[in-house]
């Protein structure tokens, strides 16, 4: 039917079928057990002028699908022309082999077999004297994805994922103060999940943040924990090197390609090929093979350090980097990361902290920098004072303000140790100096 439409240049179909399990705990007790399915299909049609139409449905009956095709073509005919559109990807000869993205155990998992994960979470909270409550979950999913396009591309992948999350709340019985912290672990295979570790990490963080004190304004070194690195370095850079954000000039890194924007300690890559990693894939959501790309090397923002899907790559006249991302069948491909990594350094975390006379360690701000300017000013939700090389009291009503380019230049130490949070991997990082706005006048 689509071939009949002479104006049509190309089309692709994305079909996804998922089955999932979810067990939730609230108030440190099992609350809800859930199983579900999702399956849906979307069609993208593009005419010779580059106009795009899109439709999706999860009602997989012939009559609905025919209606969808007609609607998509109608939408295409209404859309504005886009000379920047080049073509959809052509079929590829070779796809990489990435092991560990599919765990057969998850496909055949029964809910009874997952109970022990949440029981482990519950146990950690119950056995701690300060913990008063916990919410969290275990979830697993198995999905199959098919992508076909009119350029003879036809690919199929199956993958699994599983996760544990824990949000633990603690209370100091004397001061009556409370504190909480959230941790999670996302994996491709069940045997990597460690619920006790996840709950313990949440518990430790919550304890480090109890009985918070206001401080005076100060200027000093700042240690970013891996969570801090994700929110102040990795997420902003991932957003800024997104081909679309970049082409719309909404990125603070526009005009900075090929320039040194950070200290030698800043090395970042987007690697889709790590065996078993949460962000790895054989091919992206347009069927383009994934790969490993260097983004920043010794503080230099590489000329080829952008993330592209087929559209933004075509607009720039380069190959897609395999970063098309849909989230699910309901979206047209945008651009996403695979595994976004800041490379670890060669110093122990202890040594990095040891030299600090007075500074702070920043774990979590909840705030995010302005991607178009690189400006950041945010409330420190989890952070502590560092005095004479030791982590001391947690900070209350304390804010930090810095421009990201300034922050990148001031990175003067990166730890050997690192943590993985889903598709992000980050070490501990020291910033030479930043302005801290205290809650005390």
């Amino acid at each position, binding site marked *: 039917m689509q071939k009949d439409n002479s104006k049509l240049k190309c089309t692709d179909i994305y079909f996804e079928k998922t089955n999932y399990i979810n067990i939730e705990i*609230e*108030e*440190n*007790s*099992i*609350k*809800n*057990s*859930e*199983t*579900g*399915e*999702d*399956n*849906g299909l979307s069609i993208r049609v593009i005419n010779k002028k580059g*106009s795009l*139409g*899109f*439709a*999706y*449905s*999860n*009602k997989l009956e012939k009559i609905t699908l025919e209606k*969808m095709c007609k*609607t998509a073509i*109608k*939408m295409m005919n*209404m*859309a*504005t022309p886009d000379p920047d559109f080049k073509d959809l990807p052509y079929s590829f000869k070779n796809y990489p082999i990435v092991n560990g993205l599919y765990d057969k155990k998850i496909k055949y998992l029964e*809910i*009874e077999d997952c109970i022990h994960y949440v029981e482990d979470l519950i146990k950690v909270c119950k056995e701690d004297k300060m913990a008063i*409550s916990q*919410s969290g979950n275990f979830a697993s999913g198995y999905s199959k994805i098919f992508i076909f396009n009119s350029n003879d591309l036809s690919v199929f992948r199956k993958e699994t994922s599983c996760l544990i999350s824990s949000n633990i*709340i603690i*209370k100091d019985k004397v001061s009556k*103060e*409370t*504190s*909480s912290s959230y941790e999670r672990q996302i994996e491709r295979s069940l045997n990597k999940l460690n619920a006790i570790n996840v709950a313990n990490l949440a518990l430790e963080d919550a304890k480090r943040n109890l009985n918070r004190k206001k401080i005076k304004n100060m200027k000093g070194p700042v240690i970013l924990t891996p969570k801090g690195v994700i929110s102040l370095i990795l997420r902003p850079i991932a957003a800024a090197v997104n081909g679309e954000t970049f082409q*719309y*000039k*909404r990125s603070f890194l526009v005009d900075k390609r090929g320039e040194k924007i950070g200290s030698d300690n800043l090395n970042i890559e987007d690697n889709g090929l790590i065996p078993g990693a949460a962000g790895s894939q054989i091919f992206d959501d347009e069927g383009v093979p994934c790969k490993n790309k260097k983004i920043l090397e010794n503080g230099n923002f590489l000329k080829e350090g952008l993330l592209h899907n087929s559209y933004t790559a075509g607009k720039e006249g380069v190959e897609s980097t395999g970063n098309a991302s849909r989230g699910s069948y*309901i979206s*047209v491909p945008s651009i996403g990361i695979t595994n976004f990594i800041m490379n670890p350094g060669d110093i122990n975390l202890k040594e990095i902290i040891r030299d600090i006379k007075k500074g702070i360690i920043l774990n979590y701000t*909840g*705030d995010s920098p*302005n991607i*178009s*300017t690189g400006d950041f*000013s*945010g*409330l420190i*939700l989890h952070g502590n004072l560092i005095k004479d090389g030791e982590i001391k009291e947690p900070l*209350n*009503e304390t*804010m930090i*303000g810095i421009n990201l380019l300034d922050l990148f230049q001031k990175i003067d130490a990166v730890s050997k140790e690192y943590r993985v949070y889903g598709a992000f991997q980050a070490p501990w990082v020291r910033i030479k100096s930043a302005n801290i*706005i205290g809650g005390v*006048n």
Partner: protein
Amino acid sequence: METSEDLKKIDEDLITQLNQIAKEKVEYWDIRTEVNNGTSLDFTNQKSKEISSFEIINCGIRAFKNGGWGFSVLRNIERESIKTGLQKAIKLARLSESLTKINFNIPQREPLIEKFKSKSKKNLDRIDIADKIKLVKNHEKIAGDYSKYVKNTHTFYMDGNSQTLFLNSFGSKIYQDLSFLRLFCMVYTNKNGITQSSVNSVAGVGGYEIAETDKANNLSKKTAKEAVELLDAKSPVGGKLTVVADSKLTGTIIHEAFGHACEADLVLNNESILKGMIGNNVASEQVTIIDNPSMGQAKQFNLPYDLFGSYFVDDEGIPSQKTIIIESGILRNYLHNLETSSRMGVPANGHGRASSSSERPQVRMGFTYIEPRDWNLEEIIEETKDGILCEDFQYGYTDPTTGNFQFKCRFSYKIRDGEKKEIMRDVSLSGMILEALNKISAIGNKNTFNYSVGICGKGGQRVRVCDGAPYIRIDDITVGGLS
């Protein structure tokens, strides 16, 4: 729109069979089915990025026994699948029950058998897609042509119709037919290397008339004007200052920093600073806070449609109603779903909401607002010696267990000796919410009262909400900026 053929498959015969399946195995069950259709138009720089259309069906089946829930999600509305789905949910509920430490019962309620339909002056499905595109293109052009400093424009239009059928073991059977529309406009400006942006949206429950009010017609121009004004704004200096906040900013702070703490599921999980505080003084005496998601409240804002956060019944079949949260500074009620009201032994107040039938209802707000008092805006500003007038917000967040919040304002103006002065940008306010509520020293009158629309996320689910407030003044609040 006619009742969907898919929903018609659920007839009395099937309901009898479902009751038979659940009989004596569980204490409560409910089934939510929905058929959703809609359009979305996404334009950037006067070009269409995405023009799309969808049709989605979902079915969520819950079963409950003595504190344990089971939930089974389907993507079809077939009689046999629904029966199997209920059996699965029952099995899962019994599994949860065998493991849970928190046991409780859901008291029997009177069944509700009703059909509800939102009013539309102009039915969405009678508007040609070409007209909707014309509307969006027009907004894009107005924003793009507004000034040479406008670098990027983005307009997003979405509309939809959702037909739902709710059944539960009390014998309730509720059809709902809701249409909604949202128009969202964002403009980026750039001058001398400084980039600024502004965002506005119009949204409601109703038909195409939502996109045709004066407020909607003016959306792109207002957004472009604001983004241009911000280019010349200064960065503020930090410190403790008196802040006068408009309805958009106040409403958002009330929703984010206070409203979530009133959600009884968070209270029960020790994630709320308001646990054990019913009957206590939590705000200054002038403060009364309400949540009222009932339909028919938009008249006070002269709107020909219903507020975006409104609904007839929640996703557990409880009618929407007015709930007093704070009365003259005293905390009176939490917001509840079926579970939290059952556990706390109070009546359900219609706040069990889910983003779709494939998700479980959580405790969510609807239209949360501070009641106006008697100050007019001029008086509030005149009586402020040294402070900041803050309007609209960019974003904000709160630590629920401590009440520590931060909000970044979009526009701020210095107030010196009772007069509004120069514009500033990126002013951020932070503090502890209960302290801030106690420091409210002036609340504006009806003329200063307004509302804003939003989409609120919690536990991965996004629902339509509104918040409202008059202008208010808060003394002695921490203000941060870049310099």
